[in-house]
Protein backbone atom coordinates (compact mmCIF):
# COMPACT_ATOMS: atom_id res chain seq x y z
CA UNK A 1 0.00 0.00 0.00
CA UNK A 2 2.04 2.92 -1.28
CA UNK A 3 -0.02 6.10 -1.29
CA UNK A 4 2.64 8.81 -1.10
CA UNK A 5 3.72 10.46 -4.36
CA UNK A 6 6.47 13.00 -4.95
CA UNK A 7 4.62 15.58 -6.99
CA UNK A 8 1.10 16.58 -7.93
CA UNK A 9 1.83 15.58 -11.53
CA UNK A 10 2.86 12.11 -10.44
CA UNK A 11 -0.14 11.75 -8.15
CA UNK A 12 -2.53 12.54 -11.01
CA UNK A 13 -0.74 10.37 -13.56
CA UNK A 14 -3.07 8.02 -15.39
CA UNK A 15 -6.16 9.47 -13.72
CA UNK A 16 -7.05 12.60 -15.69
CA UNK A 17 -9.43 12.17 -18.61
CA UNK A 18 -11.28 14.68 -20.76
CA UNK A 19 -14.90 15.07 -19.69
CA UNK A 20 -14.42 13.65 -16.21
CA UNK A 21 -16.30 14.75 -13.09
CA UNK A 22 -14.07 16.18 -10.38
CA UNK A 23 -15.20 16.97 -6.84
CA UNK A 24 -13.03 19.62 -5.23
CA UNK A 25 -12.73 20.54 -1.56
CA UNK A 26 -12.36 24.08 -0.28
CA UNK A 27 -14.52 27.11 0.42
CA UNK A 28 -13.55 30.31 -1.35
CA UNK A 29 -9.76 30.17 -1.21
CA UNK A 30 -9.73 28.41 2.17
CA UNK A 31 -8.60 24.80 2.17
CA UNK A 32 -8.36 24.48 -1.59
CA UNK A 33 -6.14 21.92 -3.34
CA UNK A 34 -3.83 24.52 -4.89
CA UNK A 35 -1.15 22.14 -6.08
CA UNK A 36 -3.51 19.65 -7.69
CA UNK A 37 -5.36 22.47 -9.46
CA UNK A 38 -2.06 23.70 -10.88
CA UNK A 39 -1.23 20.19 -12.06
CA UNK A 40 -4.63 19.87 -13.74
CA UNK A 41 -4.05 23.20 -15.51
CA UNK A 42 -0.67 21.92 -16.68
CA UNK A 43 -2.12 18.63 -17.88
CA UNK A 44 -4.41 20.40 -20.35
CA UNK A 45 -7.25 17.95 -19.67
CA UNK A 46 -10.51 19.52 -20.83
CA UNK A 47 -14.33 19.45 -20.83
CA UNK A 48 -14.27 18.95 -17.08
CA UNK A 49 -17.27 19.06 -14.83
CA UNK A 50 -16.25 20.37 -11.44
CA UNK A 51 -18.35 20.10 -8.30
CA UNK A 52 -17.08 22.76 -5.91
CA UNK A 53 -18.86 25.30 -3.75
CA UNK A 54 -17.02 28.20 -5.40
CA UNK A 55 -14.60 28.49 -8.27
CA UNK A 56 -11.84 30.36 -6.47
CA UNK A 57 -11.18 33.89 -7.64
CA UNK A 58 -9.92 35.22 -10.93
CA UNK A 59 -6.47 33.76 -11.43
CA UNK A 60 -6.31 31.67 -8.26
CA UNK A 61 -7.74 28.32 -7.21
CA UNK A 62 -10.28 26.85 -9.61
CA UNK A 63 -10.37 30.27 -11.27
CA UNK A 64 -7.24 29.15 -13.11
CA UNK A 65 -9.14 26.29 -14.73
CA UNK A 66 -11.83 28.71 -15.85
CA UNK A 67 -9.21 31.02 -17.37
CA UNK A 68 -7.86 28.15 -19.45
CA UNK A 69 -11.38 27.07 -20.44
CA UNK A 70 -10.78 23.52 -19.24
CA UNK A 71 -14.11 23.49 -17.43
CA UNK A 72 -17.31 22.73 -19.31
CA UNK A 73 -19.61 22.76 -16.32
CA UNK A 74 -19.55 23.86 -12.69
CA UNK A 75 -21.75 22.51 -9.89
CA UNK A 76 -21.60 25.31 -7.33
CA UNK A 77 -23.57 27.42 -4.90
CA UNK A 78 -21.78 30.72 -5.29
CA UNK A 79 -20.08 32.57 -8.12
CA UNK A 80 -20.01 35.97 -6.43
CA UNK A 81 -16.27 36.41 -6.09
CA UNK A 82 -15.30 35.56 -9.61
CA UNK A 83 -15.83 37.96 -12.50
CA UNK A 84 -14.63 35.53 -15.17
CA UNK A 85 -16.87 32.77 -13.79
CA UNK A 86 -19.90 35.08 -13.94
CA UNK A 87 -18.91 36.31 -17.40
CA UNK A 88 -18.53 32.80 -18.85
CA UNK A 89 -21.83 31.77 -17.27
CA UNK A 90 -23.81 34.79 -18.46
CA UNK A 91 -22.36 34.49 -21.97
CA UNK A 92 -23.31 30.81 -22.09
CA UNK A 93 -19.71 29.61 -22.48
CA UNK A 94 -19.88 27.72 -19.20
CA UNK A 95 -22.66 25.50 -17.91
CA UNK A 96 -23.55 26.14 -14.31
CA UNK A 97 -25.70 23.89 -12.17
CA UNK A 98 -26.60 25.89 -9.09
CA UNK A 99 -26.73 23.77 -5.95
CA UNK A 100 -27.68 25.17 -2.57
CA UNK A 101 -24.54 24.91 -0.47
CA UNK A 102 -25.93 22.35 1.94
CA UNK A 103 -27.44 20.30 -0.83
CA UNK A 104 -24.07 20.23 -2.59
CA UNK A 105 -22.28 19.07 0.58
CA UNK A 106 -24.93 16.44 1.27
CA UNK A 107 -24.91 15.21 -2.33
CA UNK A 108 -21.17 14.63 -2.06
CA UNK A 109 -21.47 12.84 1.27
CA UNK A 110 -24.37 10.79 -0.09
CA UNK A 111 -22.36 9.68 -3.12
CA UNK A 112 -19.57 8.59 -0.84
CA UNK A 113 -22.00 6.76 1.44
CA UNK A 114 -23.73 4.77 -1.31
CA UNK A 115 -26.89 6.86 -1.18
CA UNK A 116 -28.08 7.69 -4.70
CA UNK A 117 -30.90 9.98 -3.58
CA UNK A 118 -32.29 11.78 -0.54
CA UNK A 119 -35.07 14.21 0.27
CA UNK A 120 -34.60 17.77 1.47
CA UNK A 121 -36.78 20.80 2.09
CA UNK A 122 -34.04 23.06 0.73
CA UNK A 123 -35.13 24.71 -2.50
CA UNK A 124 -38.79 23.65 -2.44
CA UNK A 125 -40.80 26.28 -4.30
CA UNK A 126 -37.71 27.71 -6.04
CA UNK A 127 -36.06 27.16 -9.43
CA UNK A 128 -33.87 24.56 -7.74
CA UNK A 129 -36.90 22.30 -7.39
CA UNK A 130 -37.86 22.46 -11.05
CA UNK A 131 -37.86 19.04 -12.68
CA UNK A 132 -37.07 17.27 -9.41
CA UNK A 133 -39.25 14.64 -7.78
CA UNK A 134 -41.46 16.04 -5.01
CA UNK A 135 -42.64 13.93 -2.10
CA UNK A 136 -44.56 14.62 1.09
CA UNK A 137 -43.41 13.47 4.49
CA UNK A 138 -45.50 14.31 7.54
CA UNK A 139 -47.52 16.86 5.59
CA UNK A 140 -44.51 18.77 4.30
CA UNK A 141 -43.13 18.76 0.79
CA UNK A 142 -39.55 17.76 0.04
CA UNK A 143 -37.57 17.35 -3.17
CA UNK A 144 -35.24 14.56 -4.12
CA UNK A 145 -31.59 15.33 -4.71
CA UNK A 146 -29.12 12.80 -6.09
CA UNK A 147 -25.79 11.66 -4.71
CA UNK A 148 -22.70 12.86 -6.56
CA UNK A 149 -20.39 10.09 -7.70
CA UNK A 150 -17.21 11.77 -8.92
CA UNK A 151 -14.46 10.23 -11.03
CA UNK A 152 -11.85 12.07 -9.01
CA UNK A 153 -11.71 13.97 -5.73
CA UNK A 154 -9.09 16.65 -5.16
CA UNK A 155 -8.64 17.56 -1.55
CA UNK A 156 -6.46 19.68 0.72
CA UNK A 157 -5.73 18.56 4.28
CA UNK A 158 -3.36 19.82 6.95
CA UNK A 159 -1.60 16.58 7.88
CA UNK A 160 -1.67 12.98 6.73
CA UNK A 161 0.10 9.80 7.69
CA UNK A 162 1.26 7.53 4.90
CA UNK A 163 -1.90 5.39 5.15
CA UNK A 164 -3.94 8.47 4.22
CA UNK A 165 -5.46 9.27 7.59
CA UNK A 166 -6.23 12.99 7.40
CA UNK A 167 -6.42 15.88 9.81
CA UNK A 168 -7.79 19.27 8.77
CA UNK A 169 -7.26 22.63 10.40
CA UNK A 170 -10.02 25.03 11.52
CA UNK A 171 -12.43 26.14 8.78
CA UNK A 172 -10.15 24.76 6.07
CA UNK A 173 -11.98 21.46 6.65
CA UNK A 174 -15.23 22.63 4.97
CA UNK A 175 -16.03 20.67 1.80
CA UNK A 176 -12.88 18.56 1.87
CA UNK A 177 -14.24 15.48 3.69
CA UNK A 178 -17.47 15.19 1.65
CA UNK A 179 -15.55 15.84 -1.58
CA UNK A 180 -13.03 13.16 -0.62
CA UNK A 181 -15.77 10.64 0.10
CA UNK A 182 -17.53 10.86 -3.25
CA UNK A 183 -14.62 10.18 -5.60
CA UNK A 184 -13.75 6.85 -7.18
CA UNK A 185 -10.18 8.03 -6.72
CA UNK A 186 -9.22 10.59 -4.13
CA UNK A 187 -5.95 12.52 -4.34
CA UNK A 188 -4.94 14.65 -1.37
CA UNK A 189 -2.35 17.37 -0.87
CA UNK A 190 -1.15 18.14 2.64
CA UNK A 191 1.19 20.52 4.36
CA UNK A 192 2.90 17.72 6.22
CA UNK A 193 3.11 13.94 6.02
CA UNK A 194 3.72 12.68 9.54
CA UNK A 195 4.93 9.27 10.71
CA UNK A 196 2.38 6.54 11.28
CA UNK A 197 1.14 6.60 14.85
CA UNK A 198 1.74 10.31 15.40
CA UNK A 199 -1.91 11.19 14.75
CA UNK A 200 -4.22 10.33 17.65
CA UNK A 201 -6.73 7.79 16.24
CA UNK A 202 -9.52 9.72 17.99
CA UNK A 203 -8.54 12.95 16.21
CA UNK A 204 -8.51 11.72 12.64
CA UNK A 205 -11.12 13.59 10.63
CA UNK A 206 -11.07 11.36 7.57
CA UNK A 207 -9.81 7.77 7.67
CA UNK A 208 -7.26 6.64 5.09
CA UNK A 209 -9.72 4.31 3.41
CA UNK A 210 -11.05 7.34 1.53
CA UNK A 211 -7.60 8.40 0.33
CA UNK A 212 -5.72 6.83 -2.57
CA UNK A 213 -2.82 9.16 -3.26
CA UNK A 214 -1.07 11.81 -1.16
CA UNK A 215 1.43 14.55 -1.83
CA UNK A 216 3.13 16.98 0.49
CA UNK A 217 3.87 20.51 -0.70
CA UNK A 218 4.11 24.22 -0.05
CA UNK A 219 0.83 26.12 -0.04
CA UNK A 220 0.34 29.80 -0.73
CA UNK A 221 -2.92 29.84 1.27
CA UNK A 222 -4.03 33.20 -0.06
CA UNK A 223 -6.48 35.20 2.05
CA UNK A 224 -9.52 36.41 0.14
CA UNK A 225 -10.72 39.13 2.52
CA UNK A 226 -8.27 40.22 5.15
CA UNK A 227 -10.39 41.74 7.93
CA UNK A 228 -8.81 42.82 11.19
CA UNK A 229 -9.44 44.98 14.22
CA UNK A 230 -7.00 47.26 15.93
CA UNK A 231 -5.58 46.13 19.23
CA UNK A 232 -7.03 49.21 20.95
CA UNK A 233 -10.51 47.96 20.11
CA UNK A 234 -10.05 44.98 22.40
Amino acid at each position, binding site marked *: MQKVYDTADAALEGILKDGMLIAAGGFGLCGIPELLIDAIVKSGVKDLTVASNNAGVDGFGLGKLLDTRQVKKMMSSYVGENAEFMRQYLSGELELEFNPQGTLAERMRAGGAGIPGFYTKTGVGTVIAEGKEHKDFGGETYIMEEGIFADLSIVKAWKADDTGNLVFRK*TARNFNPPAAMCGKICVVEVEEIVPRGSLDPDHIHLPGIYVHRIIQGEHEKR*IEQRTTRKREEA
Partner: protein
Amino acid sequence: MPWDRNQMAARAAEELEDGMYVNLGIGIPTLVANYVGDKDITLQSENGMLGMGPFPFEGEEDPDLINAGKKTITELNRTSYFDSAMSFGMIRGGKIAAAILGAMEVAENGDLANWMIPGKLVKGMGGAMDLVAGVEKVVVVMDHTNKAGETKLLKACTLPLTGAGVVDRIITDLGVFDVVEGGLRIVECAPGVTEDEIRSKTEATLV
Protein backbone atom coordinates in the same frame (compact mmCIF):
# COMPACT_ATOMS: atom_id res chain seq x y z
CA MET B 1 -36.71 59.10 12.00
CA PRO B 2 -36.00 55.79 10.27
CA TRP B 3 -33.44 53.49 11.83
CA ASP B 4 -29.92 53.51 10.43
CA ARG B 5 -27.96 50.32 9.77
CA ASN B 6 -26.70 50.06 13.31
CA GLN B 7 -30.10 50.73 14.82
CA MET B 8 -31.63 48.04 12.58
CA ALA B 9 -28.93 45.64 13.75
CA ALA B 10 -29.59 46.58 17.37
CA ARG B 11 -33.32 45.97 16.87
CA ALA B 12 -32.58 42.61 15.25
CA ALA B 13 -30.42 41.67 18.23
CA GLU B 14 -33.52 41.92 20.40
CA GLU B 15 -34.84 38.86 18.56
CA LEU B 16 -32.11 36.75 20.08
CA GLU B 17 -32.46 34.96 23.39
CA ASP B 18 -29.94 33.59 25.80
CA GLY B 19 -28.54 30.23 24.74
CA MET B 20 -29.45 30.52 21.06
CA TYR B 21 -27.36 29.24 18.18
CA VAL B 22 -27.64 31.81 15.43
CA ASN B 23 -26.54 32.30 11.83
CA LEU B 24 -25.96 35.85 10.63
CA GLY B 25 -25.89 36.70 6.94
CA ILE B 26 -23.59 39.24 5.35
CA GLY B 27 -24.25 42.99 5.40
CA ILE B 28 -26.38 44.48 8.19
CA PRO B 29 -26.96 41.05 9.79
CA THR B 30 -23.23 40.82 10.51
CA LEU B 31 -23.54 43.97 12.66
CA VAL B 32 -26.09 42.22 14.90
CA ALA B 33 -23.18 40.54 16.71
CA ASN B 34 -22.20 43.94 18.09
CA TYR B 35 -25.52 44.32 19.93
CA VAL B 36 -26.14 41.00 21.69
CA GLY B 37 -24.84 42.44 24.96
CA ASP B 38 -24.76 39.95 27.83
CA LYS B 39 -26.82 37.35 26.04
CA ASP B 40 -25.07 34.02 25.59
CA ILE B 41 -25.31 33.67 21.81
CA THR B 42 -23.29 31.19 19.74
CA LEU B 43 -22.73 32.23 16.14
CA GLN B 44 -22.60 29.62 13.42
CA SER B 45 -20.58 30.13 10.28
CA GLU B 46 -21.94 27.70 7.70
CA ASN B 47 -18.52 26.91 6.27
CA GLY B 48 -17.99 24.79 9.36
CA MET B 49 -17.76 26.56 12.70
CA LEU B 50 -19.79 27.21 15.82
CA GLY B 51 -18.63 29.92 18.18
CA MET B 52 -17.41 32.55 15.73
CA GLY B 53 -15.25 35.25 17.30
CA PRO B 54 -14.43 38.81 16.16
CA PHE B 55 -11.96 39.84 13.46
CA PRO B 56 -8.32 39.04 14.38
CA PHE B 57 -5.85 41.66 15.50
CA GLU B 58 -3.68 42.93 12.69
CA GLY B 59 -0.96 40.43 11.90
CA GLU B 60 -2.90 37.54 13.43
CA GLU B 61 -5.00 36.65 10.40
CA ASP B 62 -5.14 32.91 9.73
CA PRO B 63 -5.92 31.80 6.17
CA ASP B 64 -7.47 28.62 7.62
CA LEU B 65 -9.94 30.60 9.69
CA ILE B 66 -12.57 32.48 7.74
CA ASN B 67 -16.32 32.97 7.96
CA ALA B 68 -18.95 32.32 5.30
CA GLY B 69 -18.30 35.82 3.92
CA LYS B 70 -14.65 34.75 3.37
CA LYS B 71 -13.46 37.22 6.00
CA THR B 72 -10.72 36.37 8.49
CA ILE B 73 -12.11 35.78 11.98
CA THR B 74 -11.06 34.27 15.32
CA GLU B 75 -12.15 31.42 17.56
CA LEU B 76 -13.54 31.48 21.09
CA ASN B 77 -13.23 29.10 24.00
CA ARG B 78 -16.47 27.41 22.97
CA THR B 79 -15.57 27.01 19.29
CA SER B 80 -15.91 23.77 17.36
CA TYR B 81 -15.05 23.02 13.74
CA PHE B 82 -16.74 20.50 11.43
CA ASP B 83 -17.19 19.82 7.75
CA SER B 84 -19.77 21.34 5.40
CA ALA B 85 -21.96 18.23 5.41
CA MET B 86 -22.32 18.34 9.19
CA SER B 87 -22.71 22.12 9.11
CA PHE B 88 -25.69 21.96 6.82
CA GLY B 89 -26.94 18.87 8.61
CA MET B 90 -27.44 21.03 11.68
CA ILE B 91 -28.99 23.82 9.59
CA ARG B 92 -31.37 21.54 7.67
CA GLY B 93 -32.10 19.58 10.84
CA GLY B 94 -33.48 22.60 12.62
CA LYS B 95 -30.75 22.90 15.24
CA ILE B 96 -30.13 26.60 14.52
CA ALA B 97 -32.62 28.71 16.43
CA ALA B 98 -32.51 31.79 14.22
CA ALA B 99 -31.08 33.10 10.98
CA ILE B 100 -30.85 36.82 10.32
CA LEU B 101 -30.52 37.54 6.63
CA GLY B 102 -30.61 40.34 4.12
CA ALA B 103 -33.09 40.32 1.24
CA MET B 104 -33.87 41.90 -2.11
CA GLU B 105 -37.60 41.26 -1.79
CA VAL B 106 -40.01 39.78 0.72
CA ALA B 107 -43.63 38.93 -0.07
CA GLU B 108 -46.60 39.05 2.26
CA ASN B 109 -46.78 35.24 2.31
CA GLY B 110 -43.20 35.01 3.60
CA ASP B 111 -41.55 34.33 0.24
CA LEU B 112 -37.96 35.55 0.15
CA ALA B 113 -35.75 36.55 -2.79
CA ASN B 114 -32.11 37.35 -2.19
CA TRP B 115 -29.89 35.43 -4.56
CA MET B 116 -30.20 36.70 -8.11
CA ILE B 117 -31.52 39.29 -10.51
CA PRO B 118 -31.96 37.48 -13.84
CA GLY B 119 -29.70 38.79 -16.58
CA LYS B 120 -28.13 41.32 -14.28
CA LEU B 121 -26.63 39.91 -11.14
CA VAL B 122 -25.88 36.29 -10.36
CA LYS B 123 -24.14 35.53 -7.12
CA GLY B 124 -25.70 32.24 -6.23
CA MET B 125 -27.70 31.18 -3.23
CA GLY B 126 -24.74 29.98 -1.21
CA GLY B 127 -26.19 28.61 2.00
CA ALA B 128 -29.24 30.87 2.05
CA MET B 129 -31.72 28.34 0.64
CA ASP B 130 -30.65 25.79 3.24
CA LEU B 131 -30.85 28.33 6.04
CA VAL B 132 -34.35 29.56 5.23
CA ALA B 133 -35.58 25.99 4.76
CA GLY B 134 -34.08 24.62 7.95
CA VAL B 135 -33.73 27.28 10.60
CA GLU B 136 -36.47 27.65 13.20
CA LYS B 137 -36.95 31.43 12.93
CA VAL B 138 -36.00 33.45 9.86
CA VAL B 139 -35.59 37.18 10.40
CA VAL B 140 -34.98 39.46 7.42
CA VAL B 141 -33.18 42.76 7.94
CA MET B 142 -33.23 45.11 4.96
CA ASP B 143 -34.06 48.62 3.83
CA HIS B 144 -37.77 49.15 3.32
CA THR B 145 -37.22 50.44 -0.19
CA ASN B 146 -34.55 49.93 -2.84
CA LYS B 147 -32.27 52.58 -4.26
CA ALA B 148 -34.95 53.61 -6.75
CA GLY B 149 -37.33 54.21 -3.84
CA GLU B 150 -39.47 51.17 -4.65
CA THR B 151 -40.83 49.06 -1.82
CA LYS B 152 -39.18 45.71 -1.08
CA LEU B 153 -42.26 44.43 0.82
CA LEU B 154 -44.39 43.06 -1.98
CA LYS B 155 -47.61 41.21 -2.60
CA ALA B 156 -45.52 38.67 -4.52
CA CYS B 157 -41.82 38.48 -5.23
CA THR B 158 -40.73 39.29 -8.77
CA LEU B 159 -37.25 37.78 -8.45
CA PRO B 160 -36.37 34.07 -8.28
CA LEU B 161 -37.14 32.81 -4.77
CA THR B 162 -34.68 31.74 -2.13
CA GLY B 163 -37.50 30.11 -0.21
CA ALA B 164 -41.28 29.95 -0.30
CA GLY B 165 -43.16 31.06 2.80
CA VAL B 166 -40.06 30.99 4.96
CA VAL B 167 -39.81 34.47 6.52
CA ASP B 168 -41.11 34.93 10.07
CA ARG B 169 -40.20 38.52 10.81
CA ILE B 170 -38.91 41.51 8.83
CA ILE B 171 -36.96 44.43 10.25
CA THR B 172 -36.60 47.44 7.97
CA ASP B 173 -35.46 50.99 8.58
CA LEU B 174 -39.14 51.86 9.07
CA GLY B 175 -40.29 49.16 11.45
CA VAL B 176 -40.80 45.54 12.40
CA PHE B 177 -43.26 43.23 10.63
CA ASP B 178 -44.51 39.71 11.17
CA VAL B 179 -45.69 37.40 8.43
CA VAL B 180 -49.19 36.37 9.51
CA GLU B 181 -52.36 34.95 8.01
CA GLY B 182 -53.39 37.29 5.19
CA GLY B 183 -50.32 39.50 5.04
CA LEU B 184 -47.87 41.43 7.18
CA ARG B 185 -48.62 42.74 10.63
CA ILE B 186 -46.88 45.88 11.87
CA VAL B 187 -45.22 44.95 15.16
CA GLU B 188 -43.42 48.19 15.75
CA CYS B 189 -42.67 51.46 13.98
CA ALA B 190 -39.26 53.09 14.09
CA PRO B 191 -39.34 56.19 16.31
CA GLY B 192 -41.14 59.02 14.55
CA VAL B 193 -42.27 56.81 11.66
CA THR B 194 -46.02 56.62 11.27
CA GLU B 195 -48.14 53.70 10.13
CA ASP B 196 -49.33 55.92 7.30
CA GLU B 197 -45.78 56.43 6.09
CA ILE B 198 -45.21 52.68 6.23
CA ARG B 199 -48.44 52.01 4.34
CA SER B 200 -47.42 54.48 1.64
CA LYS B 201 -44.13 52.66 1.16
CA THR B 202 -45.45 49.09 1.31
CA GLU B 203 -47.12 47.08 -1.43
CA ALA B 204 -47.73 44.01 0.74
CA THR B 205 -51.09 43.75 2.48
CA LEU B 206 -50.80 45.11 6.00
CA VAL B 207 -53.23 43.46 8.36
